[in-house]
């Protein structure tokens, strides 16, 4: 989990939110309240924020927010479980190293 300020993101030219979208797990509104909302958020052509969520097989739902109603988003940092890596590398060490 990584909190990201919307204002800071919009100021960055290469921010994902301005291009392909930023995967999020929730956001904080202008009153500091947290709203769980999994999906991909990006800025629309009219400047509003669009949250796209998968709601079924091959179906997405888009919710639009005024720019000032979302202040901070919680982004999903890609994480991998250490256990499969640990298992594979340990097996490799046990069997392959003479």
């Amino acid at each position, binding site marked *: 989990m990584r909190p990201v300020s919307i204002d800071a993101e919009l100021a960055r030219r290469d921010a994902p939110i301005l291009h392909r979208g930023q995967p999020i797990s929730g956001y904080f509104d202008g009153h500091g309240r947290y709203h769980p909302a999994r999906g991909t958020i990006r800025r629309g052509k009219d400047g509003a924020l669009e949250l796209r969520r998968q709601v079924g097989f091959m179906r997405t739902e888009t919710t639009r927010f005024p720019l000032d109603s979302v202040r901070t988003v919680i982004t999903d940092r890609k994480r991998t479980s250490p256990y499969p890596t640990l298992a594979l590398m340990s097996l490799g060490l*046990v069997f392959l190293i003479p």
Partner: protein
Amino acid sequence: MSHARMLTMCALAVLLVSGCSRIAMVPLHDVFANTGHALQGAEGQQITGFITSDGEYHRFRGRVKLEGDSLVFRGRSSENEFREPTHRLGVDDVTTLFSKDFDSGRTMLGSFGVLGVLALLGGLALLVAGLGTGL
């Protein structure tokens, strides 16, 4: 098992475990509902940042402690955006804290457990292979 292999496995375990800590979100109303929370203790709570009542995120690596109706943030000036070692805010001005997740200790124990089981299985496999070849 050779010393080199054992050392490599230990180094691998430390490397994997060192990247397991993660950030946890702590809503302040949950903290106040729990009277024994670290925020109310002498040392305070270790944090990486917080959300103010306007929804803005503020980076702050350090500790925060509840003092009366205020939250007192203490840390290095270089590791927070206020550029000061101490920052004081009203309790109503902050809604959420971000702290290092305490599950990293559990992850460490789990990793060493998995490593131990795998080493045991590997040792048994080598033993069986040795018996099969008559060594």
